[in-house]
């Protein structure tokens, strides 16, 4: 579509984005509230952030969550990238539709079902639950998201460069690391980040699959939220929101710079040819 926006378009954008952002902005503002009553403004204060530093339970949970997210996002990225390559490149093989079904189904599957089924698997395997079972669970659903993100990158991929490398006798593994991976890297990085934040965010699957000693931050937040809204939780949430926002904006800036660089390179290359 090329025609300019009308007043209706502008209004709907402004209202839409206010709806999306206002709750988060209010949450951030009220994390600096002096009053313990979250919704009554009692003056500016950072005391809730200070009190967070002394809340060992919360800090422990945050540390567990970060480790779970890091490990599961990394494994999920490897598996998900492999799955994306299979989906786009591997042609026909027996059980292909089952494979793509298993990739897409977890994207929409209710978390309660995923959590319950994984828990029952761990029980059936006689596996004691805790840190590692949460990692396995998170890896499983996160790899599907990674696969979808990387797949979209692979679809718009010029295969002739790879074919050229292979014609010149480059072994497939080397071709992958020298050519394919650098080109799909933005997708892989985005996939890792998505997997990381999904794990950071997950309450339901973690609640089912965790065991003693491995309480994650969302579980901690959830149990406190059930008791009521407190400025301290607002403060935790604000820190998380700020971290994630910075990471996403940084990643998108890097991707865009790479895009610009790539376009410039291509122009130079074609210019040299002509």
């Amino acid at each position, binding site marked *: 579509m090329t*025609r*300019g*926006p009308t007043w*209706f*378009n*502008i209004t*709907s*954008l402004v209202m*839409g984005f206010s*709806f*999306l*952002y206002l*709750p*988060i902005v*209010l*949450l951030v503002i*009220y994390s600096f509230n002096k009053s313990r009553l979250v*919704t009554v403004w009692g003056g500016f204060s950072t005391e809730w952030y200070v009190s967070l530093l002394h809340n060992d339970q919360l800090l422990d949970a945050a540390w567990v969550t970060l480790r779970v997210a890091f490990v599961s996002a990394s494994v999920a990225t490897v*598996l998900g990238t*492999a*799955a994306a390559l*299979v989906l786009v*490149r*591997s*042609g*026909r*093989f027996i059980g292909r539709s089952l*494979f793509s079904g*298993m990739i*897409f*189904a977890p994207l*929409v*599957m*209710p*978390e*309660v*079902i995923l959590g*319950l*089924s994984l828990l029952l698997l761990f029980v*059936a395997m006689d596996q004691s639950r805790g840190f590692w079972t949460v990692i396995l669970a998170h890896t*499983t659903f996160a*790899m599907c998201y990674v696969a979808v993100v990387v797949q979209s990158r692979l*679809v718009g991929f010029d295969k002739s460069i790879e074919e050229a490398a292979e014609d010149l006798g480059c072994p*497939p593994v080397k071709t992958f690391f020298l050519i394919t991976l650098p080109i799909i890297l933005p997708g892989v990085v985005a996939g890792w*980040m998505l997997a990381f*934040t999904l794990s950071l*965010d997950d*309450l*339901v699957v973690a*609640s089912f699959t965790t065991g003693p000693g491995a309480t994650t931050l*969302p579980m901690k937040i*959830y149990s406190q939220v*059930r008791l009521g*809204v407190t400025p301290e939780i*607002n403060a935790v*949430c604000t820190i*998380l929101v700020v971290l*994630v*926002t910075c990471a*996403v904006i940084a990643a998108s800036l890097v991707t865009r710079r790479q895009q610009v660089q790539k376009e410039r390179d291509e122009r130079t290359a074609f210019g040299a040819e002509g």
Partner: protein
Amino acid sequence: MDKPAPVKRTLGGWALIAVPYVWLLIFFLAPFLIVFKISLSQVAVAIPPYVPTFDLAGGWQAFVENLGDLSLENYLWLTEDDLYWKSYLSSVVIAGISTFLTLLIGYPIAYGMARSPQSLRPTLLMLVILPFWTSFLIRVYAWIGILKNEGLLNQLLMAIGIIDEPLVILNTNTAVYIGIVYSYLPFLVLPLYASLERLDGSLLEAAEDLGCPPWKAFWKITLPLSLPGVIAGCFLVFIPAVGEFVIPDLLGGSDTLMIGKTLWTEFFNNRDWPVSSAVAVILLIILVIPIVLFQNQQQKIAEKQA
């Protein structure tokens, strides 16, 4: 995409397929079979709290005996207690209404984005994606402070004199609708925007030149052409919303019945694993149809793009 041709595969090529495939078979497919099996078991005061358990060490004989012990009792129980079918029904209704509301709010946003200047679009896209990265729990939590009786919305409305008494919104179904619409809005806007952006503007210009009023052009051209995006977006909202737990639990009231919440209670509070497994199996059966439809549609879109 023409039919993927059989590729000559090396050992590495097979390994590439095998690793994610086996992972998903073990951690995604096998668990469902276990859920199904346990839904046919009986509850017991034991760890794990159900009998019978399959013990493959017992050999074929024991396996056959175990099969004999399986029963449909849990499923019968689900039909007898009206809590369950009411939960299923109300989940589907709540998810359906929320999906419709999300579409009403999301369409103008996606449309506005597609109409905005090219240079602005990456930023707008980013702004839609950003809340999606922010924790789901946090976004739901943020609404509690707004919707409470003494919350910010009521304070605002009373301050400007629209209402005299606080509206009770939190712990009602209205709050659940707001929560679902808010949380799932990006899922609907993104595919919708993708299909609206590809729309050929010259079609609308042609319609206009031929004297077609804008609303009619929208109805006859824009809407039908954006239908794949509408359908994909609605599925992405509806399917997970049916099994939603966090939103009805935190924003809904005690009379808000949603199956995700029922399953959670059955499992964590009543510790009845067989019944919660049966609840999960039925939920899966309800969702299989929309999930398969969704996948077929995605396949079609992917083929069209290639």
